[in-house]
């Protein structure tokens, strides 16, 4: 049935789209009077040629994997969860509570406890929009947007009034106990005395995010629940015919989605800042939307897209370090990548399809 070979569809099209995005980014950089070649070299050097660069890239990647998966799971049930940001924030509250008030003997237990708390809190934050959508038909796009704002207020209140140690200026919780410190890549992989990965925030949570990819893949394509979710996503009437309860699937899909978004805070809150801070999510919830859409809602695609956005985040930081280019340039580059690989994808795909079709015809003839 395919009009194009699989490799072209999965690799060639995104590649050309990326090149287009790069081309327009270069134009923008030229426009503000800087050198695109230099900028690109800096980004690649800083993000991919140093172990610490990789440590940052993978740290951001971890965040985007979680939020991307969160968006994707909801998407399979045809639910548009824009609330990843808020769910991750509240997930962070769960992490903080668990780490501050339970004396964990070892990080391996702490990460389990924190993951469960993050998932539960994130899921709880997704529950109300899910329930309202399922039972009352309140549009989930609005309710999740609203819940992002509400989460911000909740977090602000908690940090200013409740969790902040007296005398501390910073609206942040106390630092977590030493025992909860997650091993980072430096501690895990660097040989004695080596500077490999030093200072980079990538930590063991990265592997947790890979596990989450596998989990989502199995869940969606290998289990009854996944079958239910996809059926419901494609056709609500058919799902009803098959005895799949729309209310149940809506709620469950959103709970899983919220849990995944919440688990991002294991990486940021427990893995990086080791205390709860106000802006730990930094828009990763929104980037997750782009990641999921670009990754075609498939864990492998999401992993690739998350890597790309991780690279952009880290490469952008390097740019900001060594040049005078305003940091917003990275936002523009990200936007162009999303635009060309996501929204304008057919611009590349359609001519390629035609090309392959004529090539195929010629071969047959």
């Amino acid at each position: 049935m395919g009009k194009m070979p699989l490799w072209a569809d999965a690799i060639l099209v995104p590649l050309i789209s990326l090149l287009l995005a790069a081309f327009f980014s270069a134009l923008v950089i030229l426009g503000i009077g800087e050198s695109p070649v230099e900028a690109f070299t800096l980004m690649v050097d800083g993000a991919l040629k140093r172990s610490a660069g990789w440590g940052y890239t993978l740290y951001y990647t971890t965040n985007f994997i979680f939020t991307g998966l969160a968006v994707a799971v909801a998407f399979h049930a045809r639910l548009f969860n824009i609330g990843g940001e808020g769910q991750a924030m509240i997930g962070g509250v769960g992490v903080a509570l668990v780490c501050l008030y339970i004396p964990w003997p070892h990080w391996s237990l702490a990460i389990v406890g924190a993951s469960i708390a993050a998932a539960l809190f994130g899921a709880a934050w997704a529950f109300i929009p899910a329930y309202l959508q399922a039972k009352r038909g309140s549009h989930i796009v609005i309710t999740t947007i609203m819940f992002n704002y509400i989460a911000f207020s909740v977090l602000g209140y908690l940090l200013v009034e409740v969790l902040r140690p007296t005398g501390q200026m910073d609206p942040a919780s106390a630092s977590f106990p030493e025992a909860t410190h997650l091993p980072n890549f430096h501690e895990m992989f660097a040989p004695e005395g080596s500077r490999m990965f030093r200072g980079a925030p990538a930590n063991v949570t990265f592997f947790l995010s890979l596990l989450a990819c596998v989990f989502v893949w199995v869940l969606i394509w290998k289990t009854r629940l996944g079958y239910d979710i996809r059926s419901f996503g494609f056709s609500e009437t058919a799902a009803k015919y098959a005895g799949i309860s729309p209310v149940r699937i809506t709620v469950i899909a959103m709970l899983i989605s919220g849990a995944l978004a919440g688990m991002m805070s294991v990486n940021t809150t427990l893995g990086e800042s080791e205390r709860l801070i106000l802006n730990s999510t930094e828009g990763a919830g929104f980037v997750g939307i782009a990641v999921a859409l670009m990754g075609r809602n498939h864990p492998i695609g999401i992993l690739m897209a998350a890597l790309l956005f991780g690279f952009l985040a880290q490469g952008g930081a390097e740019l900001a370090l060594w040049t005078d280019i305003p940091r917003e340039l990275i936002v523009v580059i990200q936007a162009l990548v999303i635009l060309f690989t996501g929204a304008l994808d057919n611009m590349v795909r359609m001519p390629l399809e035609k090309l392959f079709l004529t090539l195929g015809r010629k071969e047959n003839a």
Partner: protein
Amino acid sequence: MAAPATPAPLALELRGISKAFGPVQANKDISISVRPGTIHGIIGENGAGKSTLMSILYGFYKADSGEIYIRGQKTSIPDSQAAIAAGIGMVFQHFKLVENFTVLENIILGAEDGALLRPSLAKARKELKQLATEYELNVDPDAMIEDLSVGHQQRVEILKALYRQAEILILDEPTGVLTPSEADQLFRILDRLRTEGKTIILITHKLREIMEYTDTVSVMRRGQMTATVKTAETTPEGLAELMVGRKVLLRVDKKPAQPGAEILKIQNLRVIDESGVERVKGIDLTVRAGEIVGIAGVAGNGQSELLEVLGGFQDATGSVQVNGQELPLTGAGSDGQARRAAGIAHVPEDRQKEGLIMEFAAWENSVFGYHHEPEYQNGILMDNKGILTKAADQMERFDVRPPHPHLAAKNFSGGNQQKIVVAREIERNPDVLLIGQPTRGVDIGAIEFIHQQIMNLRDQGKAILLVSVELEEVLSLADRVAVMFDGQIMGERQASETDEKELGLMMAGVSGAQKEAI
């Protein structure tokens, strides 16, 4: 079927039309000519390319190559606007109406006079009245499309074409969704249009309609035009063979029924829908083992709701028993999975919206609704390999074409989609089979096959409840026929002891008792 004596210019001529959708060659070098004032039939299997050809003529698709001549003039039809200007109107198989617009709004859409609506609406209203009297095309101009029956929606489509002064009217499977009386009325209208000199192209899967109403007929197969003949000079059997490429049994081979115990027992069933309207008003019905009970009736008289209740996706009150077991009709235990567990299998009326997930591969669809059953599980995961093997085998046996389990459901033709659903439900070996509109829009090759499967199941002693708007189908399949009107059962007849005329009267609300009293 009098054809004009003098050779007037052709109303329409297509020369060498080809069209490919990506790798699929939907039309290959097709030529056809149609004389004015005739009804020209087009038949062919599902996916043969009939709709594509007509859509090209109507400017909906663009042909890759070929020429179109209208009344002898070479005409280029790049879009529907050009087609309309050339006097072509088309009633699509899937109507192109805006559901939440009124009839009037749908009629003027694209054919407004001037930038403001009010004058256009007034003018259309007047003209509509005239057309209504002229052609017996009555519809309430202010009704919402979504509130109309399919038959009325079709009238709107025809009115749309007439309002645009179409000289050539294309109808794509117009009777697939109509009741017999609605179909009769449609053909009366078409007849009148023909006598006025308009040209009509009729796509249908029903040989009877071809034989009764058309002047000439073209047969398509796999994107090509295989023959064009005068209707008077052919036979149904001959056409069927041209279509399918082999001999087809046009009659169901039916052995006498051997009814056994009561399997399905329905008492005082009532359904009130979301908007508070009572759709089913107290039905009593039983179906016994080894028997097919057919429900006839004009669409919208509660048959759909009856099936939905039994299938577990509509709440109701009253009592339904299967094998003596009472089934809950609301709340927990009343969903589709509980029904399946109770031994009810269900081929839904709308295969695309209910019976299949169009984006799922055939193998995934082969367990749709049954995917929770232990036999498809492998620990906490689904036994996808097992399902795939089974599906491949099932597709082979049910002659699903192409027999590729990895193909998405949407890539099968309507008939083959239906076979996938029928195979899934029959293979369950249920005690009760509910089956709604089993052959709607399905080509005759597939109809033959599906009917045979239903018969086999009956002969294995299963209870079958069949709902169809095709009286002919109900009569030829069912052993007992119940007619529904306005949410009630007007009466029951043995299929062998009744005919279309009597059933038709009952469908119109003339109760059996009344008639007997006469």
